């Protein structure tokens, strides 16, 4: 065997070893790094409506969340009632939500509780806009991780005009609006 052939063999072995060690290290590092998921920063969301139309799922994995600690439980609810509503009641003609996904329940005068029916919510954000403009902003959008398929490149994030979509650790997969709610969560 010629010395040059020996050298080539050694180089090959070293290269293969380096590749093996590097690959193992990379794999270990990847397994240690936290899994990331997509989420909406409610402070940056501009309620443009693209969450409902750009998700690869139909209906969208984005749903309206409601913070009861922030809600004012108003009879005159900007998230439930159309701005030109003729009455403050459950009549379909008065409701802002295009899919009637918000349920209104009387508690005691003058308080009403509003709950989101997730199956009906399409993530359009119309109620979020209403609640933000004429309310406390207790309604906001979040990606539901039991629905989201966590695309590597989220189609909504690509279309989001306000950079509200963020990659966050799966261990804390929601950006809830109030500290109080975080403690409960």
């Amino acid at each position, binding site marked *: 065997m010629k010395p040059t052939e020996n050298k080539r063999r050694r180089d090959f072995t070293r290269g293969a070893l380096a590749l093996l060690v590097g690959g193992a290290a990379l794999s270990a590092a990847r397994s240690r790094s936290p899994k990331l998921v997509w989420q909406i920063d409610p402070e940056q969301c501009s309620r443009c409506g693209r969450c409902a139309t750009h998700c690869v799922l139909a209906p969208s994995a984005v749903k309206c969340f409601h913070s009861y600690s922030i809600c004012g439980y108003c009879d005159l609810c900007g998230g439930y009632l159309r701005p030109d509503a003729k009455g403050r009641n*459950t009549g379909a003609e008065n409701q802002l939500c295009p899919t009637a996904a918000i349920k209104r329940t*009387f508690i005691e005068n003058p308080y009403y509780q509003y709950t989101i029916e997730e199956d009906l919510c399409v993530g359009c954000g119309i109620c979020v806009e209403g609640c933000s403009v004429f309310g406390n902003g207790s309604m906001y959008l979040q990606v539901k991780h039991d629905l989201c398929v966590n695309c590597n490149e989220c189609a909504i994030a690509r279309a989001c005009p306000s950079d509200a979509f963020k990659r966050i650790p799966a261990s804390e997969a929601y950006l809830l609006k109030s500290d109080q709610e975080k403690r409960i969560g």
Partner: protein
Amino acid sequence: MFNYINESEVSGVGVIAAWGRTLNQRKTILIVVAPVVVLAGAGALWALSDWLGYDPAKGLSRSLPGMDGGPPESERNQADELNVDLAGELATYDGVPSSLPGSWPRFRGADFDNIHKGAAKLADHWPEDGPRVLWSVDLGEGHAAPAVLNGRVYLFDYDEAKRADALRCFSLDDGKEIWRRSYELPAKRNHGLSRTIPAVTEDCVLAMGPRCHVSCVDAETGAFRWGLDLQKDHGTTEPLWFTGQCPLIEDGKAILAPAGPDALLMAVDCATGEIVWKTPNPNGWKMSHSSIMPLTLHGERMFVYAAAGGMVGVSMEGKTLWEIPWNASVIAPSPVAVAGDRVFITAGYGSGSLLVQVDEEGDGYVAKELARHGPKDWLACEQQTPILLDGLLYGIMPKDAGALKQQFVCYDPASGELVWSSGKTQRFGLGPFFLADEKFYVLDDDGTLTMLAVSATGYEELARYRVLDGHDAWGPIALAGTRMLLRDSTRMICLEMGAL
């Protein structure tokens, strides 16, 4: 036995041609084809009837009024008859008034401009762990902010456990309570409860409760002097979400805006509780959340009030000097005088702003609308009143201001131009803001305090720290000496802001 037709005959022409060759063949074709034709026809008829009879609304239910289980609208929001004993009761505690200097005696401070003019130097930067918290006090849910005089901190609170309005007096030193005067009042949380700032003089403290109850007590001891139920006594309509009107003391008189059928504004003697004068309310304007501001126009000091319905200028003796209609639905900010005998008023919820020119005419005044803007077009604020400094107006834009929403902005009222804004990454919710020692202090909804350099050219942030935990930190900021008082919805804190 079957006779099969050739493949070449399996076509329309082929089948017809094949038809009639032999009787057997005909029979075979009929036996095979007839059931298929009958079944296909029946299937087609069934499909057609199903298609025609399809009810697209099947499975849907109608949403009709009354499905929330609530009472009819006609029975809601009926004013409940309250019989409140405004004298209530006085409780005393072991707090001791502070000897520290400085005061913040009412809403927007001593000069009604939200600018602190004390000589104390305030820190230009803060330690890594933020400004030092000297003391804190738990409060009932609300947005009421304190007034400070003679080492005492006065705050109008709501005691949720006892269901009572409570005017509380604390020591500026350590936040210990000195006395508390409270009266029972049924009130339900409606975006918080308390929301006004008392007015305090050496003589007395004047406070207005969320349901329009006015009380005047001794500033030192809390002894009760007199009280008024504006709804019951003067026909006031309680504004949506309770009242935010901060009362005013001027020359020993309480200046109030009941906006009832018999008086738009009125003055009450602080010593006796007697009504000194009333300004008529011919337009039937209603009480807003705005507060009466003493402004000087054409060299004359007058009371300016933005009611729900319009804005009015009233002389020190209660005579209407000028008025102008403005149909903003909810008005929380108060009027601001700008150069050229003009008055600027703004409101949230889509109202935007109104700039009014007040001119002398004959022996009186006339008000003319100079400009009216939507919230996306010019300076507008939803809750807080803009600050006028060196001819420029500073404020926080409302939620419906488009790209500028919730940004801290500077506008030039003379040119109408936006001078600068804080940018899309710096938004402050509905935050209160005020000016001291040539620095702006802005508190956002979540309790983050930001210190800005006063600049006519651009946004310059000096420091930022989250000083409060809670949400809805909407109560205006007060400063006495170097002690800054801030609150969120349930807690008040005192920060040491002196130069390091």
